[in-house]
């Protein structure tokens, strides 16, 4: 048997793919537990909701007839979009549902960018905007944060006539800083109709501040505004992969052209639909986050550790050691956090908020590693 030579990668692979690094997600719990020799694993790394999905979604999942697994879902999440339209007082064609908010990021970039175009975002934010732009062959201009928040002036200064999209993460993951209503309005006014402005509101349901802007409400005034929402965070449906975008009819009509239909499964659609009916879930989650963050802030301060994280269900902590070393040491005690080196915050870790016993365990393990390394 002859083996054919490898494909001619030099000719086949575009330069922007050659120099791109694939994102390697963490290994499954059972495998990690074996390597790290821990008996259990507390995941505080993905900003999931410790309460899980709302009661209404749990019921929808239980009610899902196994037989329906053989039937294609609604290709464009019709019922969910109708519900969203009703909820927000908009047209159902102003919504596009994706396989997680991650998927809709790609829809927008594909819809508006061509060779030579760029997007503008921050250097220390959710990385997927930057990644999708880069592996699609477009430049991602990443502007340094200012006081841990997006720097509006610097973003405007970084833009040129080839800037098609601004991505603003509000509140920001991982810093928790947010633009208030005035700042967002000012930014939208300055951009005018020259570019699309995406406001990623993946964590908006966690924010209780009165001056926090709801991008959904601003859509009628700003036809170039697009907002992202997800069911992965507040609504605890991360494993089902469902999120969406909303914008003006005209803009969404363009984005729809690049969107892969049938990418959202029926169980996810049913669970998300039910989540929108939930009554106490947001309140309960907010109460939990409030208590846990207060506790974390207090404990970290008493350890002399600097924290960042005004809003959102996560908190960044600066350690007196390398975050990747702290990761390994915490993992060997069964606690998984997210290192921030990849977000360009060396020596910071991000801890997702959990229930109090989980938070106490994290603090206990962190104290152990600080003591071990002579930092207590």
């Amino acid at each position, binding site marked *: 048997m002859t083996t054919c030579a*490898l494909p001619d990668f030099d000719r086949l692979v575009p330069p922007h793919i050659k120099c791109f*690094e*694939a994102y*390697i997600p*963490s*290994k499954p719990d059972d*495998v*990690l537990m*074996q*390597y*790290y*020799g821990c008996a259990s694993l507390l995941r505080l790394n993905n900003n999931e909701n410790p309460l899980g999905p709302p009661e209404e979604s749990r019921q929808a999942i239980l009610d899902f007839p196994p037989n329906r697994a053989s039937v294609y879902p609604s290709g464009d999440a019709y019922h969910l979009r109708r519900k969203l339209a009703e909820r927000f007082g908009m047209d159902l064609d102003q919504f596009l549902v994706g396989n997680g908010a991650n998927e809709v990021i790609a829809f927008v970039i594909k819809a508006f960018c061509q060779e030579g175009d760029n997007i503008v975002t921050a*250097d220390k934010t959710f*990385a997927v905007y*930057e990644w999708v732009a880069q592996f699609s062959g477009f430049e991602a201009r990443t502007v340094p944060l200012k006081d841990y928040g997006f720097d509006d002036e610097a973003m405007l200064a970084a833009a040129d006539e080839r800037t098609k999209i601004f991505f603003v993460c509000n509140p920001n993951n991982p810093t928790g800083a947010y633009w208030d209503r005035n700042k967002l309005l000012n930014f939208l006014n300055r951009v005018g109709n020259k570019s699309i402005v995406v406001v990623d509101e993946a964590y908006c349901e966690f924010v209780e501040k009165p001056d926090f802007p709801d991008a959904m409400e601003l859509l009628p005034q700003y036809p170039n505004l697009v907002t992202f929402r997800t069911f992965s965070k507040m609504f605890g449906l991360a494993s089902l992969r469902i999120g969406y975008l909303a914008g003006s009819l005209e803009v969404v009509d363009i984005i729809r052209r690049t969107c892969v239909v049938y990418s959202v499964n029926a169980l996810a659609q049913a669970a998300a639909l039910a989540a929108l009916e939930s009554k106490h879930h947001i309140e309960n989650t907010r109460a939990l986050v409030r208590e846990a963050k207060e506790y974390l802030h207090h404990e970290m301060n008493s350890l002399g550790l600097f924290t960042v994280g005004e809003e959102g269900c996560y908190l960044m902590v600066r350690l*007196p*050691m*390398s975050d*990747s*070393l702290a*990761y*390994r*040491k915490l*993992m*060997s005690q069964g606690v998984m956090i*997210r*290192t921030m*080196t*990849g*977000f*360009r915050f*060396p*020596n910071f870790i991000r801890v997702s908020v959990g229930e109090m016993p989980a938070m106490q365990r994290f603090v206990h393990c962190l104290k152990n590693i600080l003591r071990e390394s002579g930092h207590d």
Partner: protein
Amino acid sequence: MSASEVVLELAASPEFFPVARSVTENASLAMGLEKAEARRVAMATEEIFMSLCKSAPGRKLSIRCTPGGYCVITEFVFQDPGFPLEYFNMTSSVSTSNEQDMANLGLLVASRIMDGFSVERDDSGRFMLKLIKEKCYPRHTGEGASHLAPLTAFSVRKADSEEAAYAAAQAVGLYPAHALPRQFLHPRMLADRIDFGGATAAVAVGPGGEIAGIVAWDLSSSGSMVECHGPFLLTRDGNPALCEALLDFCIGDIAKLPVMGLINRRHNRDIPIHYFETVGSLPLTAGNGETFQAPAYFRQMQEDAGCNVWAHESLEEFLEKQYARLCLPRKILRPLGRALDPLSRSVLFSEFDRNAGNVTFLPVSPGRDILPNVEAHLNMANKEAIKNVFFGIDLGRPWQADFAPAVLQAGFSPRYILPYAGCGDMAFFSL
């Protein structure tokens, strides 16, 4: 082929020898080497080409000359899967009458003429014999350097080549030579590397535009590690915040690259060592005979997901201790022995850094003669008067486990593990 390189394809036959020689010499001149250096490239080409005519007569190869900014890289690339691997063992002696050994001697002679000499194998199984000839740079004396007054405020940004060369020259006057990398001792070299994209530097700048600190970094040839130099502080105070800001900038710059680790091999008092883990150290002898321990400060750039490593039992105790100390999640596996052809000969790559007086041996293929081969390589290093001899074993490749007992028996001791520096972790040994 990139726009700036010269590639020649030919067969290893004596009649083409003048072609190979004149192409490498003229390409070197065109790429910025002086006459004397270009002639040395031609001489090395001569040695290698003639030795190839002996060991692989008539086989096709290509010769690629690439500008490296501070140097010219000449590579002999063998696409041929049947290429005799023994060719790469640099273990010959002049007294031998064996044809293969005579051919290997050619490589050795070539390695003496060059600044850097190594063999690489890429993912598609191609072999590359890589020769580096540097431009000739004056060594900076550090004269005229003096500490700046402490700063009240500063900002950090990427340095252009002139700023970096200036800051490096200042550092030469303020730090001992062993704390400085070659490109700092020769600041124009650093400038050329930066202009060419082979190195990056960041500087801290005070309110009046004064350059108060520098850190520089470059990607390893495998692309999996970044080596950083510094930070070096040019102000009188110890300013940890400034040094941390420089390192933060460096880490931020490489954070999204497919890089497994950041390594720093030279200690200086201003390095914020809490950013690193000390994986170990290597005893080094400098050109002037001075000996010292060179630390290996390492910073993992990714979350460690755990992996298996392959190791011979003779190395297990060392590995277990190191992995426990560094809290690295590893499962140590013992490879099952493989039946090797009784005539199979092991092969080692030799990586020379003649300026530092270093050679590192790396296994390329297993054989029945590992111990004598390792000893022969050691002998060669002794004869060449190379002061620092290292051995690297890739724990991600099961067949390399067989090298451990021979390496230990030949007098090497394991010094440290560098996570994911090869296909898996690399274990480094020194005498």
